[in-house]
């Protein structure tokens, strides 16, 4: 059984391309070209060079000694927080901007929730000298002022999504509408492993550099390529998809996906899609989705703006449905306490998204010989205001 995408764009029963006909030519152009273009040696050379010299890859696999001693197991952290722009998001935007250029596109659009993907997109647009428009929910624009300022400084135009709940899902709707209105010159850089096929697969491939490096680094440090446990947080799921990618079909690796429980899975204020979602269609993909009994998409909640997406990528929906990955949900409070703990035990201030992944250490027992890899997907600079408010710093 393969946990990767099939030729029709499905992961098990999840995925596909449920898009209006207006988007068909754009998505079809991408579907026909993404594998061909990304396999070209010139593409790979440019992608690898930018990841190395611009993003700062490979990111280290760091043995967290104090954490390991406390939990009596071997804990390694994949340091995506050290990527340029502060998180793994840029791995994908580098890949997609190179693809957009080869497709002859001159205008780039993106959606963003917390602003990390927006910043990563604005960054690569500045790098390539391309016009950049980022859609962001009106409410998120207010919540994430520093990232809005970063995008503007990088030369991007930030457009407020005023429809619906005025957050990430609405920003995604607006970006899709923009693409419908500008089908010829515009390329849409989606920020996660969501959306219509081929986006989930394409984004997973660009992020798969994370697991490729983990394999090489573990071999060097431990004499084996595979960890016993691999832990990552999941909103839409791009950092997790990248961390899991090369381990998906090796069942000796226990994959753990960490969702945001918000105030608690049953509180009505949660983003734990695997627990609360049902199969449905959002943003062109059939996947698990938080929705009303009538099929209206509901607004999720998490203290972490990067995890409050009402769906989850179709790869992850399939990992959940097949039992390949274990899904654990972590509350705001647990994640925030781990933000503080990791800062004070390892000198690493994590993004609140990533802090959720660490809370698994309190939820599960690991053996002293186990090798546990946690994807530290981003750093916490962007979350300082939230930490300040929460801990009254």
């Amino acid at each position, binding site marked *: 059984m393969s946990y990767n995408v099939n030729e029709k764009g499905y992961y098990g029963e999840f995925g596909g391309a*449920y898009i209006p006909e207006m988007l068909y030519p754009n998505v079809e152009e991408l579907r026909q070209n993404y594998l061909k273009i990304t396999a070209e040696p010139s593409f790979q050379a440019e992608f690898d060079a930018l990841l190395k010299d611009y993003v700062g890859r490979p990111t280290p696999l760091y043995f967290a000694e104090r954490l390991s001693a406390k939990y009596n197991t071997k804990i390694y952290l994949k340091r995506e927080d050290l990527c340029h722009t502060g998180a793994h998001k840029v791995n994908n935007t580098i890949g997609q901007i190179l693809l957009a250029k080869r497709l002859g596109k001159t205008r780039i659009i993106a959606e963003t929730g917390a602003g990390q993907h927006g910043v990563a997109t604005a960054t690569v647009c500045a790098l390539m000298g391309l016009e950049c428009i980022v859609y962001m929910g009106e409410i998120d624009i207010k919540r994430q002022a520093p990232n809005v300022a970063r995008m503007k400084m990088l030369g991007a135009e930030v457009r407020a999504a005023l429809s619906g709940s005025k957050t990430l899902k609405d920003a995604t709707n607006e970006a899709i509408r923009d693409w419908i209105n500008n089908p010829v010159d515009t390329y849409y850089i989606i920020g996660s492993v969501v959306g219509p096929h081929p986006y989930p697969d394409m984004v997973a491939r660009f992020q798969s550099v994370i697991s490729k490096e983990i394999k090489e680094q573990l071999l060097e440090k431990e004499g084996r390529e595979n960890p016993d446990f691999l832990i990552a947080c999941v909103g839409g799921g791009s950092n997790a998809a990248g961390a899991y990618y090369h381990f998906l079909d090796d069942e000796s690796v226990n994959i753990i996906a960490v969702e945001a429980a918000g105030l608690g899975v049953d509180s009505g204020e949660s983003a734990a899609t695997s627990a609360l979602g049902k199969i449905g269609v959002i943003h062109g993909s059939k996947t698990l989705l938080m929705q009303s009994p009538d099929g*209206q998409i509901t607004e999720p909640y998490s203290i972490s703006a990067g995890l409050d997406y009402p769906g989850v990528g179709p790869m992850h929906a399939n990992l959940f449905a097949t039992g390949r990955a274990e899904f654990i949900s972590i509350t705001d409070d647990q994640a925030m306490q781990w933000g503080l703990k990791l800062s004070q035990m390892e000198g690493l201030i994590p993004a609140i998204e990533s802090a959720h992944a660490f809370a698994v250490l309190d939820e599960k027992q690991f053996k002293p010989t186990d090798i546990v890899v946690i994807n530290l997907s981003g750093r916490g600079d962007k979350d300082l205001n939230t930490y300040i408010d929460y801990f009254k710093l």
Partner: protein
Amino acid sequence: MNRINQKLQENKKILSIYFSAGYPSLNDTVQIIQDLEKSGVDMIEIGLPFSDPLADGPTIQESSTQALHNGMTTQVLFDQLAAIRKTVSIPLVIMGYFNPMLQYGIENFCKKCAEIGIDGLIIPDLPVDVYADEYKATFEKYGLKNIFLITPQTSDERIRFIDSVSDGFIYMVSSASVTGSQSGFGSTQEDYFKRIADMNLKNPQIIGFGISNKETFNQATQFAKGAIIGSAFITNLTENGVESIGEFVNAIR
């Protein structure tokens, strides 16, 4: 014969009107349909509101959001329409996004439509390929016509495929845009309208998106069997209320 096929055989240009069910008020649905028929409209698209209408511009997004806020659901709409065939005889089409239908259950949804006397469905985010593979048999079992969209970017090959899968009409999106974002047609659109007309498709074409008044209606129907007005009708409902339906339709033709 299905009411859609029958209507399209008439020797006239078809005026079809779209509105969001449950807007302006939850229980306006039946009266709007009855008034539209009385005013001489040929076909009605009843919008089943969705929280995330990707292909729609601000006007229909807002009327959908308001309709949901008013309490519209799939079941409420079916209940409102239960007796509609006692008073209305023109073709009725439900236009909505796929997820609410999926949650109702596709078979149940189709069954209910057939019971009520709905003639067809327009589901913008159900691609023709998925329909042909997974749902065509169910739709046909209940005598429902599924209507597909084409756009200026749709290739001739794909238009031929859509024509082969369709039995009713083809919904021609006038330009690369979401709903409600046009004002008048230029030569690019006319070239596209002509190109499609010259393809001699087996299904008649009805043009939608960007039709807002007599002028654009006449322009579109020079090349196609009919035209659909949505956002402009909703704006009129917002500004002038349900009482103004007759006046709005009379101004179109």
